[in-house]
C-alpha cells in the first residue's frame, strides 16, 4: 500500500527529473542559438543536443517512475511504466534510426 509520504516522495523525485530536463535542454538550445549566430557554423551541435535532451526527458521520467514504483513494491504500476517505456523507446529507436521515415517513400 502506498502511503502519503511515498506519494510526496514520488512527486519530488519526478518533479526534479522534469525540471532538470526542461531547464537543461532550454539552456543548451539558447547556447546553441547564441553560438550559431556569434560564429557562423558552430552551435548546431548544442542545438541538436538540447532537442535530444528535451525529447528524451519524458522517457527518463517514465524510467524514474518505474524505479520508484519498484522500490515501493507497487508492481502493478511498475509494469504500467514498463509498457509505456517500451512504446516510447521502440518508437524513438525505429524513428531515429530511420526505419519509419523510409516507409514514406
Amino acid at each position: 500500500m502506498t502511503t502519503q509520504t511515498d506519494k510526496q516522495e514520488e512527486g519530488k523525485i519526478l518533479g526534479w527529473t522534469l525540471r532538470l530536463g526542461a531547464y537543461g535542454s532550454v539552456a543548451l538550445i539558447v547556447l546553441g542559438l547564441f553560438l550559431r549566430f556569434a560564429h557562423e557554423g558552430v552551435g548546431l551541435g548544442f542545438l541538436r543536443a538540447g532537442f535530444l535532451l528535451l525529447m528524451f526527458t519524458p522517457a527518463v521520467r517514465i524510467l524514474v517512475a518505474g524505479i520508484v514504483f519498484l522500490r515501493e513494491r507497487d508492481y502493478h504500476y511498475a509494469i504500467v511504466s514498463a509498457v509505456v517505456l517500451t512504446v516510447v523507446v521502440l518508437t524513438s529507436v525505429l524513428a531515429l534510426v530511420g526505419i519509419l521515415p523510409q516507409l514514406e517513400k
Partner: protein
Amino acid sequence: MNAEHVTLLLILGFIAGGVGALAGIGGGIIITPILAIYLGVPMHQAIGVSLTAVIATSTATSSVYVEKGLSNIRLGMTLEMATTIGAAMAAIIAGFVDRKTLAVLFSVFMLYTAASLVKKAWDSRHQKVETEIPPYKVKRLSAGLGASLVAGGLSGLLGIGGGPIKVPIMFLFMGIPLRVATATSNFMIGVTAATSAYIYYGRGDIPLLVAGPIVTGVFAGSLISARLASRVRTTYILFLLVFVTLYLAANLLWKVWGGKF
C-alpha cells in the same frame, strides 16, 4: 535565417506561451497556424515545431504540479499507455497526409478549441477556485483509455497537447476533480508529444533553427505567466484567445480554399 528571424520567432513563442499558460492551453494552437500562414513554414514542419514547444511547456509546468501532488501520477501513466500508442500511429499516418488536408483538420480542431474556450470563459465568470481537492475515485477507466487513444492520435497528427479532449473526459466521465484532471493531462502531454516528436524528427520535420527560438520563447512566456496566473482575471484573456483562434482558423481555411497553400 538571420538574427531578425530569430527575434521574431522568440517573440511569437513568448506571446503564445504566455497567453496559452494563462488560458490553460498549450501554445500550439496559435504557433502552428502563424508559422504556416505567415512565415512560409510547411505544414508538417509547423506541426513538428509545435510538438517541441508542447514538450517544453508540459515538462516545465508539470514539474510544479507533480511536486504539489496535483497530478495523479498513477492514472496519468495508465492513460499514457493509450496516448503514446495513438501518438506514434498518428505521427506515422501524418507523413502520408497531404498538407492541405492537415491544414483543414487543424482548422476544425481550432474551431473545437475556440468553442471549449468560450465555455471555459463563461464558467470562469463566477467560479471559485477549488482550494482543496475533494476525495475522488477513478470511474470508467476504459472510457478514459479510449479517449486517451484519440487524444494521443490528435497530438501526433496535429502537434497539439490534446488537453481540450482529455480534461473534459476525466472531469465529466471519470469523476476526477477539474484541477487534478488539468494537472494529470499536463503530466501526460510531455510523453505523448515526445513519442510523435521522434517520428517528426526522424522524418526531418523539426527544423531546429525555427524550433529553437520558438521553444525558448514559449518556455520563458509560460514560466512568467504561470506566476501571474493567480493574479490575472482570465475571462478577458480567454475571450481574446477565442477571437485570435477563430481569426487564424478562418485565414488558414481561406488560404487552402484559394489554393495558395
